[in-house]
């Protein structure tokens, strides 16, 4: 039968105290002998054997130490990498800020250029939303009555090398936003004019997006001298007449587009117009707050 034997250490001091004394005596004798020079040759031989081993081991130790220090260096490099990543993120954020500022600066410069070229006081803002349905052409403008926006004000934008042009009229204005009825909408009707030398041809611009074309100039006399390539501007009739109507805020001579086609239908002459700015693509626009025609 096998069983674990209870294991108990016997008190060692009682077991063989003589051995301890013997070992101390041997060590003392060895020390005395070596001090007397008796063990010198033996010790030298031993050193001759041990020294190469010690050198090898020290080399191995140095190698291990270098590995450990390299690991420490790696830690330092990792820490530096983390710091650089953080700095990189900070720089990217600053770059984005700088780009945003540059973008805003470009818009403001554009606004100043327009204000220098035209007698308008402008308010720029983002177009933050388009109507979700395809039946209407309305956009939400990121400025409202708090910024001085009122219904009937003209909204302009610029695209490419074209002049700043009308894209719509403020239909409703809230405190911070305003809905803008685009000139391409079917319900949009704005008085317009075309300068032909000393003649002025006046009519009404109506949105035609729902009919496949963009704008149409109608209510023009059949004999009116319209030609392809003529520039169509706002007439600002309500403004000139100082009527208390929303449309009175639309100043005259705001570019709209160019005539692409002229047709005679019945007693009327109709012109198809390509707007200078595609209102559907506009993401930043200006509201004409005031127009000082005397500055012109």
């Amino acid at each position: 039968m096998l069983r674990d034997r209870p294991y108990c250490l016997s008190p060692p001091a009682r077991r063989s105290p003589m051995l301890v004394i013997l070992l101390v005596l041997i060590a003392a004798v060895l020390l005395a002998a070596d001090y007397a020079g008796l063990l010198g040759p033996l010790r030298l031989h031993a050193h001759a054997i041990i020294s190469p081993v010690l050198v090898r081991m020290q080399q191995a130790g140095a190698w291990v130490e270098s590995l450990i220090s390299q690991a420490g260096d790696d830690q330092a490099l990792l820490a530096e990498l983390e710091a650089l990543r953080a700095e990189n993120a900070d720089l990217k954020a600053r770059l984005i800020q700088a780009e945003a500022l540059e973008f805003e600066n470009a818009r403001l410069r554009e606004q100043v250029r327009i204000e220098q070229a035209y007698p308008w006081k402008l308010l720029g803002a983002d177009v933050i939303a388009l109507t979700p349905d395809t039946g209407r052409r309305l956009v939400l403008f990121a400025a409202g009555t708090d910024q001085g926006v009122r219904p009937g004000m003209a909204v302009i934008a610029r695209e490419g090398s074209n002049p700043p042009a009308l894209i719509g009229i403020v239909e409703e204005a809230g405190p911070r936003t305003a809905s803008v009825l685009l000139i391409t909408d079917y319900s949009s009707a704005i008085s317009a004019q075309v300068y032909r030398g000393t003649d002025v041809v006046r009519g009404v611009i109506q949105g035609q997006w729902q009919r496949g074309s963009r704008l149409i100039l109608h209510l023009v006399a059949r004999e009116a001298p319209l030609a392809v390539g003529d520039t169509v501007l706002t007439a600002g009739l309500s403004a000139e007449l100082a009527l208390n109507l929303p449309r009175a805020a639309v100043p005259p001579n705001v570019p709209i587009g160019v005539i692409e086609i002229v047709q005679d239908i019945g007693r009327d002459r109709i012109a198809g117009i390509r707007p200078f700015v595609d209102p559907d693509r506009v993401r930043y626009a200006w509201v004409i707050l005031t127009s000082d025609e005397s500055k012109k």
Partner: protein
Amino acid sequence: MIMHDVALFAALFVVALVQTALLPRPFDVPINLTLLLAVCHGLIAGTTSAARWAFYGGLALDLCAMTFIGTHALALLAGVIVSTALVSRLSRENWLVPILGVAIGTILYHAVYALFLTLIVAPVDLQGYALAALVPDTLIAMIPALPLYLVFRWNEDRVRRRVPVDVY
């Protein structure tokens, strides 16, 4: 018995080599591995066995350190014998036993070693020696004392469970 002693000396000689060439020196203080092993072994196996470890380990250290043969051996014997004899009176379950044993052993080891240095080599500035060698060595040696002691105890428990005997 002789083969056992030869194997023990060989093992302790390797320990001395490791202590001399391989062990790191935290804060430029060497770790006295031989003393640590001898004291922890003495706390488990008793003073006589620890004295053998101290003797062989001391001789190995003397050979590696190129000191007079017997210097380290006597210093280790003094430290290990006194510390294990004193501390083994305490309960082995007390975790302070190895720390206390190693602390006493290191102090005595350095005291005897400094004495031999004074007698054999040159007078030692005791205050300087205490500040530069004794105190840092003692503090450093106390750190691994408990883990090493627990390893020895674990090994002892392992060995005790593996002693099958026939009981009729």
